């Protein structure tokens, strides 16, 4: 468990951002991950009073606040309808309902965990993040940057109607994934995202299915306690095919 001396419920994003510039301070998301650490913080910055717990339908895009919980993503009707159930599929195996009622989108995207179901799924869509300091940037760029002192406020997802599918392999139901795989179709091109390699999710695109499969096999895979590189490479091929089958079943 962490320790902290002060707790500030931010009254504006600007205030949160200013406070977060000190290395001794930290933004508090759902606290599920931070709770496992032993860090000593000076000030914890709570974003829960800023209306960032909203999922908004803004016509051309969906706006997801940083404090939206994983359970909100899982059960939101608009997201279910517009993104082929992707948000349900990528959250439903994460620990349990009570956990998902706490853990946040912001904490998940900011952390850029290699094993992240959320990051893998989001990268299959067209997403931008809005940061308090740096403004709007593509998610693909954000996940490549090291964790810095900026505050993640929103994730915007384009509602472009692209077909999308999601699969993971887990050793047991609620464990961290051994591999994550998302697939989408962008115009005439395929887009695959492979995560938990165990490194951060990688995106590959190709105009042919065979080309896509080759690129996925050529990605770098590694060993850890959940699986070997060889096993992961094999799984990647299997999950990719299953994703395509998911799409075919839903008539794409």
């Amino acid at each position: 468990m962490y320790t902290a001396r002060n707790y500030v419920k931010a009254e504006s994003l600007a205030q949160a951002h200013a406070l977060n510039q000190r290395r001794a301070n930290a933004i508090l998301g759902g606290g599920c991950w931070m709770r496992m650490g032993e860090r000593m913080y000076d000030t914890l910055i709570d974003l829960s009073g800023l209306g960032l717990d909203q999922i908004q339908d803004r016509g051309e895009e969906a706006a997801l606040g940083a404090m939206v919980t994983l359970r909100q993503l899982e059960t939101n009707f608009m997201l279910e309808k517009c993104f082929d159930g992707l948000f349900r599929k990528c959250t439903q195996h994460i620990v349990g309902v009570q956990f998902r009622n706490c853990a946040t989108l912001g904490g998940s995207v900011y952390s850029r965990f290699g094993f992240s179901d959320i990051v893998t799924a989001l990268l299959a869509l067209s997403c931008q993040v809005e940061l308090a300091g740096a403004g709007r940037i593509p998610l693909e760029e954000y996940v490549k940057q090291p964790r810095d002192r900026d505050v993640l406020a929103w994730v915007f997802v384009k509602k472009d109607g692209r077909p999308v599918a999601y699969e993971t392999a887990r050793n047991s139901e609620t464990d961290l994934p051994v591999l994550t795989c998302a697939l989408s179709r962008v115009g005439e091109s395929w887009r695959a995202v492979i995560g938990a390699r165990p490194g951060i999710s990688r995106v590959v695109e190709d105009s042919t299915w065979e080309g896509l499969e080759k690129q996925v096999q050529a990605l770098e895979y590694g060993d850890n306690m959940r699986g070997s590189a060889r096993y992961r490479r094999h799984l990647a091929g299997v999950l990719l095919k299953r994703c395509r089958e998911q799409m075919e079943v839903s008539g794409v």
Partner: protein
Amino acid sequence: MTIKWILNGAARTDEVEADETLLHCLRKVGCLSVKCGCETSGCGLCTVWMDGTPVLSCSVPAPRAEGHAVTTLEGLQEEAAEFGAFLADEGAEQCGFCSPGFIMNVLAMVRELKNPTEEEIQHYLTGNLCRCSGYQGQLRAIRKYLAVKGGEQG
């Protein structure tokens, strides 16, 4: 810091630390049904409701209870006893350590899901670990409890 909140239906004011968890605060004010079973936010034993939603009190910072209504097993005595009897009838409880969190989540599920299927029940309850049993007794108890409850609702 001072928080104003509602605990089991009663408004109250308490002093909490910046790094205090809701779990710690609840035990401090006498809700001893709330327990900590892991260090990894993954066992469900510490489940309480915040504004009716089941959450992990080990992860929720106590200062965040400000302005919210928290419910623990102490606030649901009658319902808990009713469902608890079904658990006992199926011999589901062995050491019983997991029960408070499990019952809180079952009662939340009953409110949230209409006529859940077996799969939906399991999905809702996978975040509650029990180290003694194989969950079969619990599932039988839930099925029987739901059948009786469904009957009452017509």
